[in-house]
């Protein structure tokens, strides 16, 4: 059980080209996650660089979503869930008892599998985060934040005339972009996306993927996906999870052409999954 994790390809600055800029945004060391008695993540260590898209791939139940939810402590909402090990964001241990989980989540935003806009006007959806964090001094500033976020999410042109319509009235793809705008509005540094396109049609998916590529300029993005094509399309780095362990993490192009691990190769070529 406590044996060292075999052979992980930790990314180091000198290795993949995407990492030339240095400094890791999120790091994890020896993370174990348990659901009751069941261990979901086994001794996981990873370093995720800033201003890049990292994709987590792997078969269902491999722990990729579980780990993603550890990064902004969304697992706190599950009573039976227990996390050990160190996870840091910008060098700060996020499981430190002194850390304010609310501030953490403002810094590490999240987009969920199914679009989950609040049943409120579009404007209120985006404005909610800035309001609770006191990011705007007055109404004009709030309006600016809302507009900026919606523009960044590529939704502004479609909704600017109906900001007071309910967010739930948008199409699935629009709803998901609204959720991205909502996440952007609180000025996060990391955005976690848990299979953000799995409930969308191909056209909406393409639109979101484009958006993710644009957002890369400013954010550290971690995306969990079921689709290897999607990982190949949007990410610079790919992590392959299997049975609760991180098998391999490295440059996406390399991973899909010349994986170092047999298991990765088997998965990518469709032997299991």
């Amino acid at each position, binding site marked *: 059980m406590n044996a060292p994790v075999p052979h992980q390809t930790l990314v180091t600055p000198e290795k993949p080209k995407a990492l030339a800029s240095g400094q890791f945004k999120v790091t994890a060391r020896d993370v174990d996650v348990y659901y009751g008695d069941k261990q979901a993540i086994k001794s996981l260590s990873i370093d995720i660089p800033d201003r890049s898209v990292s994709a987590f791939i792997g078969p269902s139940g491999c722990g990729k979503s579980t780990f993603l939810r550890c990064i902004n402590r969304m697992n706190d909402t599950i009573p039976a869930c227990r996390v050990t090990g160190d996870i840091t964001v910008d060098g700060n241990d996020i499981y430190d008892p002194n850390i*304010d989980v*609310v*501030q953490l989540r403002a810094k590490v935003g999240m987009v969920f599998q199914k679009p989950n806009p609040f049943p409120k006007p579009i404007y209120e959806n985006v404005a909610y985060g800035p309001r*609770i*964090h*006191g990011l705007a001094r007055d109404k004009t500033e709030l309006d600016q934040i809302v507009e900026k976020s919606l523009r960044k999410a590529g939704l502004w042109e479609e909704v600017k005339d109906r900001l007071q319509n309910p967010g739930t009235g948008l199409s699935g793809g629009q709803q998901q972009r609204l959720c991205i705008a909502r996440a952007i509005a609180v000025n996060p540094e990391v955005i976690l996306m848990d299979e953000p396109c799995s409930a969308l049609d191909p056209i909406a998916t393409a639109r979101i993927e484009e958006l993710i590529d644009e957002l890369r300029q400013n954010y550290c993005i971690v995306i969990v996906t079921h689709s290897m094509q999607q990982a190949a399309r949007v990410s610079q780095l790919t992590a392959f999870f299997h049975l609760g362990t991180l098998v391999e993490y490295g440059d996406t192009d390399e991973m899909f052409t010349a994986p170092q691990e047999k298991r990765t190769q088997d998965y990518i070529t469709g032997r299991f999954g």
Partner: protein
Amino acid sequence: MFLWTLLLVVLLAAGAYMAGRQRAIALQGAAGVRLHSLPSYHGYLLAAAALIGGLALAIATALAFGVHSPLTAVAAVIGAAIAAVPLYGKDTPDFRARNLFERVVLVVLVLCSGVAVLTTIGIVFSVVWETLIFFRSVSPFEFLLNTKWAPTGTPPSFGFLPLLAGTFLVTFIAIVVAGPLGLLSAIYMAEYATPRLRSVLKPVLEILAGIPTVVLGFFAALVVAPLIRNAGISVGLEVASESALAAGLVMGMMIVPLISSLSDDIINAVPQSLRDGSYALGATKSETIKRVVIPAALPGIVSAFMLAISRAVGETMIVVMAAGLAANLTANPLAAVTTITVQIATLLVGDQEFDSPKTLSAFALGFVLFFFTLFLNYIALRIVQKYREQYD
């Protein structure tokens, strides 16, 4: 007077909110940094402190000097100040006003949930305590074994067997009426009725369930009892003007909606796959219901009946108005009987001194009633829970 003090506390809390919020805004402006918590949370925290401090000291003063003492107002101001002023001094940007306030809120929520437990403790405490005092003057053996109930007689007699018999007689009649009616109604609603018909029938049962028991009691006494009496006389039977039958019949009708709605839920919870299995063998609908659905739903139906019995045993107004006061030890449904609830109600209505065995005996009856119904409810709820888990 105390109402004014309460109003004062609310005003103080409002003032504290303004002060806290203003201070936070000023701090934000001066320091030019973002605060840990929104200014309004600084306000909420101070308001909560003022409210709790003011209320606590005001109530303490009211208990010491009486509710109408003007001192309560002074105490409210002092209490609010003691609680809120130290917090006002905490003016650093990273002061976690929101976390602190949320902790206060959580404590309040926990306390509110505790009220339900407190109610139960209150009930147990009040019935047990008074019952123990009652048993100091009347031996428990007399209470349990004597067959004569005459609390106002000379000498008084406190044998509760006739009451138990009366209670069981009325309950038995009620269940005999309500059981088949409720169960058959539920089966018809769940398995046969078209959605349209169901949308008509469901409100009928809901209306019946919503009719206050005092109305049913009036109906039992005014319409049903004379009807039974006249019918009895016409066939040569002697019927008391207040008979167990009248009370039991109407009580049965009261319980029909309870049994039918509980059974309806339970029958609907039986998985369709079980029915499909039966239909696939060529069974008719009624055969499927009788041989598959009902046996599968049986634990739930049993618990529905237990809840219904508990309801009938505890029902007061119908029996007070239609069953009478005569403590007869009889199984004759045409005779007048009295029940535990009737006696509790009649013994405690009107002014009375609290130390006489007569009043205390009502609490002993309450003790019996509470623990009997508690037992039934507890078992029934356990069965339902087990049953739900089975099909979830």
